[in-house]
Structure formats: structure tokens, C-alpha cells
């Protein structure tokens, strides 16, 4: 299956520090969630793992589906999603801010999240802004609203970046 993977600048894995080659298969040996294996995102997982570079990755072997990720014993980077650039990051942040302001800007307590998101975006902290938007939704309607806000963020990414569906 094909999935997506956020990496740090230079195609470096943000947690393991592994520098990914492009096009070559990387073998992890097995797929053990959060321990071993090639970890990647379905579209719905993307908002939780935002990073500087977005890549499409081909996974092979027995792919294990987890709540927020998929894990496979081997994978290879297929292409970088060039559309995930600074302009897209800013637009994504703006969409998150706009939705939160519309939904909660006038609501006591929750309105504070709008200012938080503005501050995070002003300092380029888009992942934190997206998290704050989900948290505002959760405060308003419980955990299901957290997940719904994340789903809206994922839908925005899929549409703007022309990503394939899960």
C-alpha cells in the first residue's frame, strides 16, 4: 500500500534520526508499533504528525494498522509531496484559525484558543496551532469533537495536496 510520511528537513526521520534514501527499499525486519518497523500515515493520520517535509511512501509486507499510524516491515520513499510547502503550511494554519474563530471565537473560555492559535502561527508553529484547534473543539464537545477537528484538518490536507484517499 502507499501511505505518507512526514520527515524533518533533509528527509530525516524526526524520532529515529534516520536519513531516508529516495527510491531504495528500507528494511526494518518486522512491524511492531512504535518500536520496530516503517511508520507511516494514512490521510486521516496526517494532522497528528505534521512536519517540514511530506513524502509518499510505498509499504510492503504485513502492514499493521494502528489508531494513528500504519507500520510495515519495509518501505521506500516514492516521491516528495512538493505541494506541502511554506505557502501550504500557512494556508493550512489560516484555515485552522478561521474555523476555530468562526466556531468558538465568541464563546467564553474557548475564545482564548483563537488568540493562542494566532500566536502559534505568528511564530511558525503550525502543528501546535492545529493541536490547539483540536483542543478547543474538544473543550466544546468532548473527545469526539477533537477527532472531528483532526478529520477536518486531514480533509483539508488531502484536498489541497491532492493526496489519494485511504
Amino acid at each position, binding site marked *: 500500500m502507499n501511505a505518507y510520511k512526514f520527515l524533518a528537513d533533509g528527509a530525516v526521520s*524526526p*524520532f529515529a*534520526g534516520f536519513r531516508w534514501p529516495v527510491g531504495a527499499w528500507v528494511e526494518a525486519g518486522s512491524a*511492531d*508499533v*512504535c*518500536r520496530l518497523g516503517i511508520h507511516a500515515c494514512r490521510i486521516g493520520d496526517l494532522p*497528528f*504528525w*505534521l*512536519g517540514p517535509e511530506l513524502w509518499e511512501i510505498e509499504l510492503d509486507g504485513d502492514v499493521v494498522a*494502528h*489508531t*494513528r*499510524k500504519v507500520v510495515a516491515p519495509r518501505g521506500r520513499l516514492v516521491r516528495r509531496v512538493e505541494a506541502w510547502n511554506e505557502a501550504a503550511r500557512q494556508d493550512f494554519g489560516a484555515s485552522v484559525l478561521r474555523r476555530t474563530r468562526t466556531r468558538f471565537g465568541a464563546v467564553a473560555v474557548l475564545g482564548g484558543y483563537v488568540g493562542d492559535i494566532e500566536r502559534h502561527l505568528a511564530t511558525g*508553529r503550525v*502543528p*501546535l496551532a*492545529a*493541536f490547539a484547534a483540536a*483542543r478547543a473543539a*474538544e473543550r466544546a464537545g468532548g*473527545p469526539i469533537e*477533537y*477527532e472531528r477537528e483532526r478529520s477536518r484538518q486531514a480533509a483539508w490536507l488531502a484536498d489541497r495536496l491532492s493526496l489519494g484517499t485511504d
Partner: protein
Amino acid sequence: MRLDQELTCAQVVEIVTAYLEDALGAADRERVEEHLVFCDGCSTYLGQMRETIALTRRLEPEHIPSRLQDELLAAFRGWSPA
């Protein structure tokens, strides 16, 4: 992450060694990593810890001044769990 799964920065700092030693279960490891995605402070802290560990690994006993070695040994001998 959702409120019911959230880790504070203080909690991340507390368990960062376990994270680096791969001693956390999958769920806790994911909670830490989800926090790291949006928390620059904890990401920086984790990077500093990794750098410290890498530098310390390169140290040989002869790199440590004898006085400091004595002080460290005394501190370790005098240490007891709280």
C-alpha cells in the same frame, strides 16, 4: 492528543530517559511522540539529551580530571533512592 491521553511537558521530561531507552510501552511511546510533534521545547530537550548521551559515550576515563572523578565517585557512593 486528547485530554484523556495528554502528557504535560513535565511528564515528558520525567519519562524521557525511558523513552530513549525504549522502555515505554507502545501507547506511552506514541503519547510522547505525539507531544513532540507540536512541542518545540520538549523536542529541543530530547535533542539535548540525545546529544549529551552521544558525547558522554565518547568519553574515556582519562578524559575526566581526577578531581572530578573523585567527586563523581563520592556522589555516586553517597547516593540513595529517595
